[in-house]
């Protein structure tokens, strides 16, 4: 498959949603109104079709002819540092990983134009700086960031998933958002989001990635605050934006570090050249670890990892469709994607990988514990999202045990990301359908027994819940199984056995909790006596066809997609064709499977016992285990802790700064401002209008000048 044939596809994927966003934003409010979904639907359909075509055609791209690749800019590596690298001992498996590049790694790059081009620093400045900057860090490289679209295997998978889920969510959204006054705004923002997300996935350099990383953040802000007249929604959007800034700080630092050390910011130059990474790691072992820490900080913000997870549950203030698309299936996975994409760096930074796994484990456990007691259906799902993202990161760090596990780890994490997108979008949309029927009530204590009133919603939610809980053969089963398998493998090798062993225990327990709280939510909503809140009216209405069909399609996907691509190794084989990853021998882990079957059935069984058979017991347990219940109910008081630790001190500083600004600076400026006025009033009297006085003053001026000059000489 030649470059020329694929290039239009690459173009189409982001261009269609961008066009739709522009059209909807310009024409929506006046012309399209409640037809605003049409551009969005068509654009997403085009993007999805193009992504699917790309997914199929990309492997046929002859990698030898991946000639569209722009050769990496002159690398600044000096011969000495390379020989240093050779001298140091690098684990053999890393070298093997390095050697396996370029062969059978299809990728397509389409060059669009120059975006940012900075000249190298002039020679003079370098000489001046020679005293202060150590030799190895001095860079003469400028920065060149072309606008390029790049697709390799991992990106093609992400694109297909993002556009597919987005299309279904957009279909559902037109029913769900029916008669909302912001209808055109919604579809403009969704189109913009899909454009940004596609560009994030397709970017070819860290700087472009950062730009679109921010763009998805912006779209997320706009959509969380979609009902911006509601104070809680406005606050939530602000919170999401601010918390994400903390992560973005890390990402920016990472980009700076990459630029100063690699002299380039494009993926080919940084990630596609293992020898160079090793050379840098050999000369300065700390720097790769530092870069990885910073990258992970960025990922923590976007993917809501502890302690930056606080924004995601609040983000449920946005329309449920938005939660389904952005805060469950797509945007929050950007962090996972970033870490997976940067595997060649993380492989050389075991400490960073341990941090990734540890953070993932803590996040997964805490979020699962919080989800146990939430009564808001969407919040349960939100915490489950945080928890599942934790699972993904848990897997991603497993390369720390043995670099040979890195590919397996990335595959597990990305596979869970992939399946999670489908069943979590399904769960959110089903929850949205419940909300729609219940007159926007989402508190599970106010309704129950909906399975007869909302049959389609009921069975699709059940499929999603089963997939999330890890019921055998469903999507979540396969991916969670791989995560547990890679954790088990990690706990058996390397020096960090104990660490990975305990993470495995945490992961298993969290999986148990996942099954439990998912089915708790399911039973509380759909079982028990039939009860509707008064907002719902007398007759709750089932989802309209435009909402029902996306639910059905996603349900089928949640049922089958794991089976279709997991055991067949379709997913892992495709992913392995990404630069920096090696194909590995995948096999079934029957022990792990047995464990997960047990975990899933135990969790579901407990939920069944507590919420269907003996519905009185949970209340009593809450009384008996009151302290634990309160902590979980209060979300571990993380918001409050952050408030005291971070927000209050900052407020204090802000207050002091305000005082300083008001009293000192303003006072200074004000008094400065009065000086000319007062002076002006004083010397006005000189300007009397009498000619003789003027002439006299000129004469005096002349005399003074003469005296001054004679005095000087």
């Amino acid at each position, binding site marked *: 498959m030649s470059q020329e044939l694929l290039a239009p596809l690459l173009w189409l994927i982001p261009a269609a949603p961008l066009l739709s966003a522009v059209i909807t934003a310009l024409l929506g409010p006046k012309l399209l109104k409640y037809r605003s979904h049409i551009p969005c639907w068509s654009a997403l359909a085009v993007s999805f079709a193009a992504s699917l075509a790309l997914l199929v055609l990309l492997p046929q791209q002859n990698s030898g002819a991946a000639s569209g690749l722009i050769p990496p800019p002159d690398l600044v590596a000096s011969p000495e540092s390379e020989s240093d690298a050779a001298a140091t001992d690098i684990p053999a498996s890393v070298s093997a990983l390095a050697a396996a590049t370029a062969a059978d790694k299809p990728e397509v790059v389409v060059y669009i134009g120059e975006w940012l081009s900075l000249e190298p620093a002039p020679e003079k400045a370098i000489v001046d700086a020679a005293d202060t900057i150590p030799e190895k860090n001095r860079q003469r490289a400028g920065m060149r960031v072309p606008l390029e679209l790049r697709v390799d295997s991992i990106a093609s998978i992400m694109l297909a998933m993002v556009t597919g889920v987005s299309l279904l969510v957009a279909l559902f959204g037109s029913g769900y958002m029916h008669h909302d006054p912001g209808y055109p705004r919604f579809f403009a923002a969704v189109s913009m989001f899909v454009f940004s997300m596609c560009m994030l996935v397709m970017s070819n350099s860290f700087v472009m990635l950062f730009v679109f990383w921010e763009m998805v953040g912006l779209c997320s802000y706009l959509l969380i605050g979609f009902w911006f007249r509601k104070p809680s929604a406005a606050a939530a959007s602000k919170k999401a934006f601010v918390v994400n800034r903390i992560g973005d700080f890390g990402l920016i630092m990472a980009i700076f570090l990459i630029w100063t050390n690699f002299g380039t910011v494009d993926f080919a130059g940084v990630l596609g050249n293992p020898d160079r990474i090793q050379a840098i790691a050999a000369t300065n072992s700390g720097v790769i670890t530092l870069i990885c820490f910073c990258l992970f900080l960025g990922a923590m913000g976007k993917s809501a990892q502890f302690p930056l997870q606080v924004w995601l549950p609040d983000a449920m203030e946005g329309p449920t469709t938005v939660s389904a698309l952005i805060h469950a299936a797509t945007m929050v996975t950007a962090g996972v994607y970033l870490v997976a994409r940067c595997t060649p760096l993380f492989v050389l930074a075991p400490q960073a990988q341990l941090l990734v796994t540890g953070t993932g484990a803590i996040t997964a456990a805490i979020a699962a514990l919080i989800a146990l007691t939430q009564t808001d259906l969407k919040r349960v799902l939100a915490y489950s999202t945080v928890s599942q993202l934790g699972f993904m990161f848990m897997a991603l760090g497993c390369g720390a045990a043995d670099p040979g596990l890195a590919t397996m780890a990335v595959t597990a994490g990305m596979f869970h990301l992939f399946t999670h997108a489908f069943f979590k979008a399904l769960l959110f949309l089903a929850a949205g359908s419940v909300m729609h029927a219940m007159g926007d009530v989402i508190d599970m204590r106010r309704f129950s027994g909906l399975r007869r009133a909302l049959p389609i919603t009921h069975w699709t939610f059940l499929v999603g819940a089963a997939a999330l809980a890890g019921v055998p053969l469903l999507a979540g089963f396969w991916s969670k199984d791989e995560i547990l398998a890679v954790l088990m493998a990690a706990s058996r090798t390397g020096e960090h056995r104990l660490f990975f062993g305990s993470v495995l225990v945490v992961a298993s327990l969290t999986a148990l909790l996942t099954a439990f709280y998912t089915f708790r939510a399911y039973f509380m909503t759909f079982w028990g006596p039939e009860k509707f809140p008064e907002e719902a009216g007398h007759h709750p209405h089932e989802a309209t066809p435009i909402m029902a069909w996306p639910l059905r399609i996603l349900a089928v996907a949640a049922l089958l997609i794991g089976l279709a691509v997991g055991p067949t190794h379709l997913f892992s084989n495709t992913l392995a064709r990404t630069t920096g990853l090696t194909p590995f021998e995948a096999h079934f882990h029957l022990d792990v499977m047995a464990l997960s079957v047990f975990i899933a059935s135990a969790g579901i069984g407990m939920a069944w016992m507590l919420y269907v058979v003996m519905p009185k017991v949970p209340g009593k347990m809450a009384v008996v285990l009151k302290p634990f219940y309160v902590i979980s109910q209060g979300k571990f008081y993380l918001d409050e802790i952050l408030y005291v630790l971070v927000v209050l001190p900052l407020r204090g500083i802000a207050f002091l700064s305000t005082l300083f600004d008001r009293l000192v600076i303003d006072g200074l400026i004000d008094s400065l401002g009065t000086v000319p*006025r007062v002076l002006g009033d004083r010397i006005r009297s000189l300007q009397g209008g009498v*000619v003789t006085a003027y*002439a006299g003053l000129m004469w005096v*001026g*002349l005399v003074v*000048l*003469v005296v001054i*000059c004679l005095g*000087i000489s």
Partner: protein
Amino acid sequence: MPAFNELNQAAGLIIPEIILIATVCIMFLTGPFLVSENGSSPAGLKHRWGALAVLALLCSAFAWLKAPLTDGSVGPFEVDAFAWYVRGISLGAGFLLTLILWDQTDDAHAAENFACLLATLAGTSFVALANDLIGIFLGLELVSIPTYILLYLGRADWMSREATIKYFLLSIFSSAMVLFGLAWIYGVAGTTNLASIAERTHRAIPGFEHGMLVVAQVIMIAGISFRLTAVPFHFYAPDVFQGVAPSASAMLSFLPKVVGFAALLQILPLCAGADGIAAWTPTKNQAWLFTTLALVTMTFGNIMAIRQTSVLRMLAWSSISHAGYMLVGLAVATEYGGQNPNEASGQAALMFYLPIYGIVSIGAFAVLAAAGTRSRPLRSLEDLHGLSQTRPALALTMAVCVFGLSGLPPTGGFLGKLNLFVAAWVVNSQLSRTLAIALAANAVVAAAYYLRLIGLMYFEAPKTILEPEPRPASALAGGICAVSTLLLFASPQWLWNAAAAAVGLVTA
């Protein structure tokens, strides 16, 4: 006949000025015959005279572009790059001023008005062309004397008359000072030829300054400071600017400054023993003198401008403060080391600033001329209230010109001030750094009243509703000024090259 040949040769050097003067003669000689005894004249006569003035200017400009540059002439005139540049400024300003005058003057006095204007333009060029102290003084007077008539003819009310008389009296006082100073220089050097003066002073011991030469310079600078409106020789400016017609104010705000700086740049290097503007570094006396004048002038001008209620007085004070900015260029002038012609130097920055200031200043007065009417000219700031609603195009033009005056991007004014600032900053001395900082601080203070002017036009309700009187030529002049200052921001290099060539940094 060598004398005849020499005269012939000299006349060949000043063809643009000869064209102007010839037109002046035609206007003065035939003008009175076209106006009847009781002062009535055929309608539209002023436009015919205006057209003749424009024609003369075009011919002059053509001759200016075609004239070859001579170097090292010993005759009365020298057409070097400096003269070429000043001539260009003078003709350009003349074109804009003619446009303003086009619909300001009345038919009966149109001939005299245009003739006086053309004469001042010729005088401006003469100062730069002259190769002799006498020539310079004649040039100065060729600007001054027609100006008196121009001011007087502009408007026939008591305010205008008082302003004209004031200007006349103080102007001859200052001319006397200049002449006195030049006489002292002659006394020291024993010659009035510029090249010979340079030779004499050059032969003196380096670093030595003749006490008499110091006094001579101070007196001459004091006299010329009147033209520049430098404090404390500025007193006439607010009264006169307020009193006379806007067309005359526009002329007064710019042409005398060109003349003054041209004369200073011609004479001062010689007094410092340098044989050209490029080779000139001010002596200690000159540096101190200009630093003091610059500091006092810009600060005083800006402070006084803040509290003005009359827009004309405000612009007069603004013009004074701009004289201060330009004096910075003289204070920090440095001998050209011969490296980079783009390198900021005080002389070049001053030459660059001059036309830029001229454009925005004339533009602002053009707007005032266009927005006022014969019965009720614009005077106070209140007259400008809400101009954006009554005359949006004029308000926009005014806003752009005021942006230029305050030195904000995207106008050429920004680049002009920036170059002056950089020129002052790169001269690595405490004095020049102080000047640079004072320049920046003054620009900030000045922004207060400039931006207030824009605020009045855009955010206040109109107070005085004037029956608009179509004055297309003035409006056109304002428009040209506004567009040129924006264009100069976009492509300033050619002007900088010309300015650098004028002060001898590069050969044109």
